[in-house]
């Protein structure tokens, strides 16, 4: 079976960086699953996502989507294969939600009827159908994040790449966005979720890759990766480990100083 995404021996250095941020990464992402990329700040998570999205060319190694080198694809062909959900945009586009979501159809040059079907389905799956005529600037943080997801769904790509999609959202909104993404994995999409929230990765991911200083420190199921022997060398010993009812690991920070100290 061909992997949805495959990185082979990839090194990358973003513009302005003095040294490689990613160092000889091998990674395989399969369809119908949520694959979380976790790691401390500066580990190279966002750089990895940019390489996967074809927005940053590796200095070494190859990045492939469905067996095709990403670098060989035109911008439109790439957008038909890979949809990106950014953490935020540089500014709020002054447009209606529906117009914003329609931006996801740019790569397809499809007929208006096919576009309409894809846009309506994306709005419906993200719970934004009733807000289609509202201005993007009037939405709450969680609703805007769902609009970003809706636009990526309208793009109709088999791979969804999400960069910290729940940052700055409250718990309820985090669950809302991640349940939508998990639902897309159930529909057959490969969902890559870059996050620094270990517990969200534990709850929603099928596979977890731990990045540390630009290299892969560990990879496997949440139970295999989110355990003391794997995480303590990366995050230090300020973590407490437990297990939830569903058997998924729970990782919480522990005070290094005694109570009241």
């Amino acid at each position, binding site marked *: 079976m061909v992997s949805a995404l495959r990185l082979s021996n990839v090194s990358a250095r973003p513009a302005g960086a003095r040294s490689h941020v990613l160092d000889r990464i091998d990674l395989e992402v399969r369809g119908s699953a949520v694959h979380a990329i976790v790691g401390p700040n500066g580990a190279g998570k966002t750089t990895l996502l*940019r390489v996967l*999205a074809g*927005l940053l060319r590796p200095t070494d190694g190859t990045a492939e989507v469905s067996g095709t080198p990403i670098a060989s694809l*035109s*911008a*439109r062909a*790439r*957008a*038909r294969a*890979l*949809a*990106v959900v*950014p953490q*935020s*945009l*540089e*500014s*709020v*586009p*002054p*447009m209606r939600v529906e*117009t914003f979501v329609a*931006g*996801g159809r*740019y*790569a397809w040059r499809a007929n208006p009827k096919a576009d309409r079907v894809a846009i309506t389905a994306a709005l419906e799956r993200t719970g934004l159908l009733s807000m289609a005529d509202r201005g993007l*600037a009037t939405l709450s943080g969680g609703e*805007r994040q769902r609009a970003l997801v809706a*636009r990526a769904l309208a*793009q109709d790509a088999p791979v969804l790449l999400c960069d910290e999609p729940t940052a700055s959202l409250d718990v309820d909104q985090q669950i809302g966005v991640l349940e939508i993404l998990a639902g897309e994995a159930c529909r057959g999409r490969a969902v890559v979720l870059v996050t620094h929230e270990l517990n969200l990765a534990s709850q929603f991911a099928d596979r977890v890759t731990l990045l540390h200083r630009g290299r892969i420190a560990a990879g496997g199921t949440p139970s295999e990766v989110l355990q003391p022997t794997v995480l303590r060398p990366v995050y230090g010993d300020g973590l407490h480990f437990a297990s939830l009812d569903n058997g998924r690991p729970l990782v919480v920070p522990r005070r290094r100083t005694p109570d009241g100290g």
Partner: protein
Amino acid sequence: MRERAALIGLAVATVALVAAQVGVGVASGIPVAPGDALRACLALVGLAEPLEGYAQDVVTWRLWRALTAAGVGSCLALAGSLLQGLFRNPLASPSLIGVTAGANLGATAALLALGGYGAALELADSVSAAPYLVTLAAFTGSLTVALVVVTIATRSGPGPTSIATILLLGVALNSCIAGALSAVENVLMDARDYGTLNALQAWSFGTLDDRKAYHAVLVGLGVAVGAAAIPFVARELDLLTGGDEDAESLGVSILKTRVVALTVAALATACAVAAAGQVGFVGLVVPHLLRLLVGSSHRTLLPLSLLGGAVFVLGTDLAQVLVVGERPLRAGVLMSLLGGPFFLGLLMFHARRRVGW
């Protein structure tokens, strides 16, 4: 619905204002009956007998003036909308960032080489391709300045170009070009070449007087190229509002969009400057007024800029005749008087308003 109403309204207003300029005339007290004016226009394309005496010449002169004014407005407003979309900054306009001055510098160099003379921007009859060579030189000047602006503006990294960067770039480039033009004028003054000096000053003030067929053709070229380019950049500029990488992830070719938008903005500005000299603020004022009317989508804004720019220049030109009478201000002076306060108002508005994701 509102977009369609604006499109129809502006198209009707453009035709009505051209007709009013031809019928009523600007800076000319010679009245021509509407039927005669129509006959004179048809005579230009061989569909009617020309009017007798000076009447035919008067109508012809007014027609070229009106068409040039409409084309200058269209070109500058379109260039403004394109630059504002490209820099994601509502204060980017051809005159503020120095693109108009760059075109003026190029045109000046061509005038010096080809032998332009007189305040009316006449060109030496001995060089038949002179108008087009002046346009080419103006295009070289405007494109060079536009490339300098893009290079410097994108050095600070991705993201919208800040208002401060745009304004400082404009101040620096306009100062450099003004210095170069002053140096040229100084040399001409020392050489007592008052004819060429007069011509250069007319360019820097901008004028719509004494326009000929080739002036209308020049701006018509700018309008045609601009209109043809709209389908290739409108949706792309809309998608760019979220950032370069965001647009690229949606399938937009950033390089192609930049090249097309910048080239068309530079060419449209060059055509306007080659036909009427330096006319400022149209590219700033018109896109802003249109955004208030129909919103920010470039798929609506760009075509409406072509019509809105024409209506703005034709309308203000006609209005000032009604106010000032027989000796109206030059187009560049009038636009500066109107655009300056508008620009100050915009600065105050944007200083108060910040919308982030």
